[in-house]
């Protein structure tokens, strides 16, 4: 009889809020250099909350590994990005008097690099994840993955997005088939066509937008040819078209978000590790609700926290510069908007004012990050975890430990690119 193991989720908001806030403050105070340790500690927290069959996942990575990996990647990338940015901006201004071309070429160079970096990052995270004391692993193949991804992208572009689900599937299969739990290799079953149906609504929106954009472009070229401007009727059509295109992006985002969730569920349900399988009951409405509600909460709390910080800064300003006392709690706001000219007595120097403004700005960023972590990522993670079950639990006996994968360089490159900003 196949044994079904349910995943429990055991995590509370309070401890996460404390940890997230504290580590974020440390990161800001250290000019961002604590971020490697911050991410490590947050991962430990998120991993330990996920408990398939009551045993917590473990994240055993170390901040120092991430830091050294980052340093190594930094030197290589600084050379690449510093010089490349310079040359590209020069070249595009020299040839086109604009910089869009520079962005375009930079993006083309960035695509394989991003896939390369993300594969290496995954490899490191898998190598530092354990469940029941057994290591996960991802075989080293970052270079081939990057090439493979570029190929998939080309196919997708050539077919105007029709083969997007194929790319989703093939890339996932590439990684899954190289993933191990202990000595057991994972396998991605299923077919890419299985994702096609859920992608069609998004594709329809995309093609509609593309078609209308192309049509709008023809209207514009007429104008260039006559030089007499658009006939009134055409101008009206153009305005309408632009309106419709802008409106269509909304369903596009909606259907694409739905596709992402459905694809994730399909791919999970077709993953196996020998006789062991997964069942995912991920629900798109739930994820959508969590995301929308989470961002509303995040923004409310960020606003409140920033107002409180602004008030504290205002008090500080009033204490140091008594001339501002009439302004009271709005001193910080007045400082930000440069409305201090008509104040008697000493006012903060421009450097001080910039300092205060910078502090408030950083504090707001920090609060947003922390609250997003707690109100969006955490509940989403909870939903992902608690809808996941493992089948064939009796076969876990046969899975044996594997050797340690150093995964040197950790997530250095991904870190430098700021990929995977979420955990």
């Amino acid at each position, binding site marked *: 009889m196949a044994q079904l193991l349910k995943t429990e989720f055991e995590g509370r908001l309070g401890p996460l809020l404390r940890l997230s806030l504290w580590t974020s403050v440390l990161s800001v105070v250290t000019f961002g250099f604590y971020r490697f340790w911050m991410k490590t500690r947050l991962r430990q927290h998120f991993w330990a909350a996920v408990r398939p069959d009551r*045993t917590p996942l473990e994240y055993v990575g170390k901040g120092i590994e991430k830091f050294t990996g980052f340093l190594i990647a*930094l*030197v290589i990338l600084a050379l690449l990005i510093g010089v490349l940015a*310079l040359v590209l901006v020069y070249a595009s201004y020299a040839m086109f008097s604009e910089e869009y071309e520079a962005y375009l070429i930079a993006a083309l160079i960035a695509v394989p690099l991003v896939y390369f970096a993300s594969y290496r990052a995954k490899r490191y995270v898998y190598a530092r994840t354990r469940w029941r004391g057994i290591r996960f692993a991802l075989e080293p193949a970052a270079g081939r993955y990057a090439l493979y991804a570029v190929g998939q992208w080309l196919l997708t572009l050539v077919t105007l997005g029709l083969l997007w689900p194929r790319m989703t599937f093939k890339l996932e299969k590439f990684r899954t088939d190289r993933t191990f739990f*202990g000595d057991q290799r994972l396998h991605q079953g299923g077919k890419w066509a299985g994702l096609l149906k859920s992608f069609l609504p998004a594709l329809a929106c995309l093609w509609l937008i593309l078609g209308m954009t192309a049509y709008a472009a023809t209207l514009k070229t007429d104008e260039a040819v006559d030089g007499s401007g658009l006939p009134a009727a055409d101008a009206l059509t153009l305005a309408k078209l632009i309106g419709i295109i802008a409106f269509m992006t909304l369903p596009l985002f909606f259907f694409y978000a739905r596709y992402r969730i459905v694809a994730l569920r399909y791919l999970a349900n077709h993953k196996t590790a020998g006789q062991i399988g997964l069942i995912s009951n991920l629900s798109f409405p739930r994820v959508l609700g969590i995301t929308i509600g989470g961002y509303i909460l995040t923004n409310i709390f960020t606003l409140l926290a920033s107002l409180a910080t602004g008030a504290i800064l205002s008090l500080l300003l009033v204490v140091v510069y008594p001339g501002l006392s009439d302004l009271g709690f709005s001193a910080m706001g007045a400082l930000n908007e440069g409305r201090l000219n008509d104040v008697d007595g000493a006012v903060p120097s421009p450097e001080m004012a910039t300092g205060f403004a910078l502090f408030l700005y950083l504090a707001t960023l920090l609060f947003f990050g922390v609250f997003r972590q707690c109100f969006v990522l955490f509940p989403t993670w909870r939903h992902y975890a608690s809808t996941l079950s493992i089948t064939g639990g009796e076969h*876990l006996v046969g899975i044996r430990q594997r050797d340690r994968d150093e995964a040197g360089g950790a997530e250095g490159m991904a870190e430098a690119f700021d990929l995977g900003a979420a955990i």
Partner: protein
Amino acid sequence: MSVSATTQPSPWAATPEGVRCEFVDGQTAKRHEVFAELRAAEGLLALNYPDETGTYVRLAWPLSHLRHVEGHRKLSWGKAPMGIFTNAMSPHARLYVRDGILLNEIRAQAPNLSRRPPVSGRGRLMALIGGAVASIALIIFVLIPTISDQLALRLPVEGERALGDKTYEQIRQSFSDSQFLPLQECRAEQGEAALVAMRDRLLGASDLDAEAVRLTVLDLDMINAFALPGGRIVVMRGLIDAAEAPEEVAAVIAHEIGHVAHRDPTRHALRGVGTFGVLSLVFGDFAGGTVVLLGVNQLVNAQYSQEAESAADSYAHALLPKAGISPGALAPLFERLKAEYGDAEGLASHLASHPKLGDRVDRAHAAADSFDAAASAPVLSALEWFRLQHICD
């Protein structure tokens, strides 16, 4: 099977001593129900469980070998605490304890729970940090300036202008009080005519093209002027307000024309692109906006090298007499700035940067000595000067 018959825990066997916990041995993914018993007198934690074949496995973990799993010290199970322990000698094994009493006993009796394995490779880490800092410094201070100097000389004029327009818009945006409207350009018609007259007078005396420089006044209360790529020279209203004669403004503009002639702004802007690319890499998302903020500041308060500033001053000293203006005109404004703000302190302005104000005043006076006062002609009429002063009205 006779083997299993003898080793199967039979209902009649004595109940194993201890508390029921969960255990994995770090060899297979099988989780075992173990009975854990803390024997304080012997200084060990006794674990025993039946393995897959039904054989009873007995382990004795010395309390001194017991460790917390790093980062998993404060786990809970519902409201109750939960402990995960491992053995320093078999670090893949895990003991999951949910029993509050046993948990407290272990925490009280095991002496080295929080001990971590010794840190290795500290020397390597230091070398790595040193190497990274040195490489980044080399890239920012040597490589990028060298390349941008070379590229600045090769950039065609149209490209330079486009680059200058872009930075100009950025500056107007970032110094604006409002989120949506950029900083006001001062374009009173008669004031602009005066400005054009001043520009033509200076350019006519130089060997630059008549279209090489565009003058703009921005409505900002800041004693500053700066040049952007492509020959755009921006004068802040504060500078015109602070000047007591049109010659003082003309002298500052002559200095900025010097920067334009030497292509300093282009060099600087290209250098900024490379440098900020690298810096945003170093500080990560933490500083995304900060870097942009500082970047714009950097453009306005452009700190060119000491040589570049001296060269621009020399250029002005040579240009001004040809336009019939005494190079000494650079001095009075600087003298007043120095009286008000001290030597290059407190004044966040490119005008006050590297060469000490005092030195610049002295050199302006020295240049004025060889100037024949009889050759001087007012750069603007009194009326034109009045109109220039009200260009922002």
